[in-house]
Structure formats: structure tokens, C-alpha cells
């Protein structure tokens, strides 16, 4: 999937992947896609909740090896 910006949240624990995602989205324009890579298993559910709460659509959520990859579009 295409993306405009990538956030490396590997090795970070709750709530840092969400906080860094929020900060990264702040610096983007509406419609742009952010790719987030994390190693925190808890971030799978949390990213979904974050997207629902903030209205930034979560385009994909998947696992590659031991990493979790998300694509989120800035609303």
C-alpha cells in the first residue's frame, strides 16, 4: 500500500505508539497516508480504537513476522 510518511514505533510500549502516531498525523495534510510499524502487540487493538475515536480511517492492520503494520489516513 502506498503511503506518504512512515513512523517507526518499533520497541516502544503503550501508549507511545499511539502518541507518536498522533504527533505524526498532526504534521500531515488531509488525505495523506501514514504507515506505522510497531512491535507492541497491544497496539493492534489500540490503533483501531484510536482510529475510531479520532475519525482517521485505519486502512489496514496486519502482521509481518513479529512486527505490526498499520496504514492510517489523515481525515
Amino acid at each position: 500500500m502506498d503511503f506518504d510518511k512512515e513512523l517507526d514505533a518499533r520497541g516502544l510500549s503503550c501508549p507511545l505508539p499511539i502518541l507518536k502516531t498522533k504527533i505524526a498525523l498532526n504534521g500531515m495534510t488531509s488525505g495523506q497516508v501514514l504507515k506505522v510499524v510497531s512491535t507492541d502487540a497491544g497496539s493492534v487493538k489500540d490503533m483501531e480504537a484510536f482510529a475510531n475515536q479520532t475519525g482517521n480511517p485505519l486502512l489496514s492492520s496486519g502482521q509481518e513476522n513479529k512486527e505490526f503494520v498499520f496504514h492510517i489516513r489523515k481525515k
Partner: protein
Amino acid sequence: MDTHVETTTGIAAGEALDRAISERIDALLERRLEAKLAEIEAARTPSMTIIATKGTLDWAYPPFILASTGAALGWDVSVFFTFYGLELLKKDLSKLKVSPLGNPAMPMKMPMGPAWFKSIQWNIPNAVQSIIPAYEHFATKMMKKTIRNQGVAPIADLRAMCLEAGVKLIACQMTVDLFGYRHNQFIPEVKDFVGAASFLPIAKDADVSLFI
């Protein structure tokens, strides 16, 4: 006689019409009200207030984690620091400590070495803990190492993120007086030094209110 019948029919028709109009209005109103309420709910910013009362390294985490996450979700967040919670507003957070003594649920594990070693639960009796010199200092060092190893943010970083995200940090003036603190010991970002009477009205309107 005829006139009387006509009048009765007229009244009955009028009543039926009134009923129909009233039912129609009720139905319309209900639908409009639902749409309006959904609109208001969608436009409203959720809010959260937290009361932070503990000043140890372990208890410093919950208020800052919840506050920063709430702010990331777009919520309006205020944290009221009272009693030992005021320690969390000091300029220098490196003095925060954790004590395993009298903290029976705290797991005592080593942050270094092979997995089998790290998984050992060290049950050290309180009586022993209390006589080992600098035991608290040692436990604090171990916990800080564990925090770093796990990729958990240091408290100072979480607090900075809270501030960056617009979390309002409020201090209890009564505690400042009680324990003889000075305002210049605290970070300048502290929004206000107030009492319970100023904080409670904010909490009253909050969707989520937590005591930590």
C-alpha cells in the same frame, strides 16, 4: 335535532384531526431530536479529569499515560495533582523513587541476565528489606532499567507529551501550603494553583473522572 347531530360530528372530526396532528408532530420531533442529538454528540469534545495523589515512580505512570492517551484521542484533559501527586509537577523528576517495602503486589524481578534469571520472583521479607542500606535506591534503579528495557517512556517524556498535547496540569494550593512547597519548585507550565472548589466543577462536566 339536526343541528345537534351536525355539531357532534363536527366535534368528533376536530378531535380526530387534533390527534392526527399531535401524533404527526410527535413522530417528526422524535426523528429530528435524534438527528440533532447525534449531531451534537459528534461535534462535542469528550473530556476527562484525573486526580493524581501518589508521588512514587510506579504511581507516576497511570495519570500521565491516561492523560497523554486521552489527549491523543482528541479529548480535553485536566489533571489535578494533590498531596504526594505534587511531586510529579516538580522540575526535576529524576528523584522519583519506588519502594518495594510495604508494596506487596510489586513483582521483584531482575532486569538483566538470561530469561530464566529474569523470571525469578525474589521474595524478600519486609524485615530484611527494611535493614538493607539503600534498598529503595537499588529497587528504583532496577525498575528504571526494566522500564528502559521494555521501551516504556520515562516519566519526564510522558509529562512533556502531555503538555505538548494540551493537557492541563493543575496543582492543589492547599498541599503546597501544607508541605511547605514553593511555586518555583514546579514546572512553569502548571496552569493553576487552586483548591478543590475550583477543580470539582471541571470534574462535574467531565465524561471520565478518575482518582489515582
